[in-house]
């Protein structure tokens, strides 16, 4: 982790009519950092994440992702990020290897790179026997690990993870975080949302969004000290229970 900035949001705002989904959100994320992006349901996390991925145009404010402007350079942004959500991850009716090759192909990996990458990936995940099986037959935890590996197959600068570990068993959840750590060690910046508060502790820094604004942003240790709490759960509860907004 360095102090080089890879995501810079400056008063990023998104309005839907009268409704301000994200309100002047300002923060920076550093290269190789694991950044936890927390918030209650309806706090504006998804909206903010969509803007950062170049999927939605902000109403006002600025942001640069890996040095690219989110208004003008969305295509460059898409080449330099990876994205994984709980809902859409892989094609269930393709085999493991077909999925890897498809997503690798999308990001323009050469045949040689693709071959090397898929072998490496299958080996690290221990999927040798499952490589030719349909993804639908894999247990959820394996799917999620595979989905993550596919999301970083092109060694992006940043990977956005939207609740990647929901419903996964405790052992697989930890294996998933091992993958996250090793990606971060390679210099990939991790931007992650989660409902598991213990996972917030694994992040270098976390931000907590309430009603469209970032109410707190610091290391987990500092936040706990500030709110005299022993667990991140308490910090989150303290900040989010006063939320006015109940709809997404």
């Amino acid at each position, binding site marked *: 982790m360095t102090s080089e900035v890879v995501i810079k949001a400056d008063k990023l705002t998104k309005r839907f009519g009268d409704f301000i989904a994200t309100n002047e959100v300002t923060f920076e994320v550093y290269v190789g950092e694991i950044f936890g992006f927390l918030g209650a349901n309806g706090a504006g996390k998804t909206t903010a994440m969509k803007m950062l991925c170049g999927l939605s145009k902000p109403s006002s404010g600025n942001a640069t992702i890996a040095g690219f402007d989110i208004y003008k350079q969305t295509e460059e942004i898409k080449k330099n990020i990876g994205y994984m959500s709980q809902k859409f991850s892989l094609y269930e009716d393709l085999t493991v290897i077909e999925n890897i090759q498809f997503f690798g192909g999308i990001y323009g990996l050469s045949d040689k790179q693709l071959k090397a990458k898929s072998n490496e990936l299958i080996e690290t995940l221990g999927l040798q026997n499952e490589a030719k099986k349909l993804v639908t037959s894999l247990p959820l935890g394996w799917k999620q690990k595979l989905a993550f590996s596919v999301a970083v197959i092109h060694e992006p600068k940043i990977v956005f993870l939207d609740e990647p570990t929901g419903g996964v068993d*405790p*052992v*697989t959840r930890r294996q998933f975080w091992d993958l996250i750590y090793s990606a971060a060690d390679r210099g990939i910046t991790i931007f992650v949302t989660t409902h598991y*508060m213990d996972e917030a502790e694994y992040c270098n820094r976390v931000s907590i969004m309430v009603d469209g604004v970032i109410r707190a942003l610091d290391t987990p*240790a500092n936040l706990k000290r500030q709110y005299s709490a022993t667990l991140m759960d308490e910090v989150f*509860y303290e900040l989010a229970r006063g939320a006015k907004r109940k709809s997404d």
Partner: protein
Amino acid sequence: MADVVLNNIVKTYNKGEVKAVNNVSFEVNKGELFGLIGADGAGKTSIFRILTTLLLPNSGTASVNGFDVVKDYKAIRKNVGYMPGKFSLYQDLSVEENLNFFATVFNTTVTENYDLVKNIYVQLEPFKNRRSGKLSGGMKQKLALCCALIHRPTVLFLDEPTTGVDAVSRREFWEMLKGLKQQGITILVSTPYMDEATLCERIALIQNGSIMSIDTPDEIVKQFPENLFAVRADNMSRLLNMLRSNKQIKSCFSFGDFHHITFQDDNELSQNKLIQTLQEARFKDIELKHITPTIEDCFIKLMN
């Protein structure tokens, strides 16, 4: 008196290829708040569907309120409340319309059992004309609970009611369940969140269709066979790798700001030796303490 009884229930899919529920037996007592704890795909939903008469088991017997789930399915359907995994509401109907609809389907009216849902419904009242599809996860969950309660069921089945819901709403939801328990309703709830286990009176830990342990949360924690320690230092990621390769350490898993470990030789010497090793490896701010295991520790232990 047991309200829910399962005897050696087996459920397979794809002509026996996938074994979803493997010889599961347990009982839920009258008025109990019972938790079924396990990851997605552990077999929780299949068990719920068998108990709510939506699926037939391949073998084994089960009963709810003394009624057999196969033979007396009509009687069970009159008496239980069920909230499936997805918040099963009509997205294009308003909050009020949803509630009224489910009340009539269950042959009752909202006013008849209003006292039961009152505490929950007051939170929804300001939005009663809003389409339920436009509500947040937490609000949908509350509305779905109201709909499942509106006919004052004897047994309430809640299949992963807190999945995808934020920590604040989850906490509120468990408060509501406590309130319902006081009204004498038997509650069977499933969750993938281990931290919610301690909020239940008794729990069953389930993995790959089999039950690993059934008891009160305290008892399950007591049964943890070893001494558990928590360790932390300045660089947690390096610490984790180091602990994993250390021969002294039997198991090591990260838990938030600490790593939880057990030793091969469970004595004071091992602890001192570990601290010494860590110091030699130039870790700073080293902290090692003996701790009480959490349900998640127990779950991981039982999985291996």
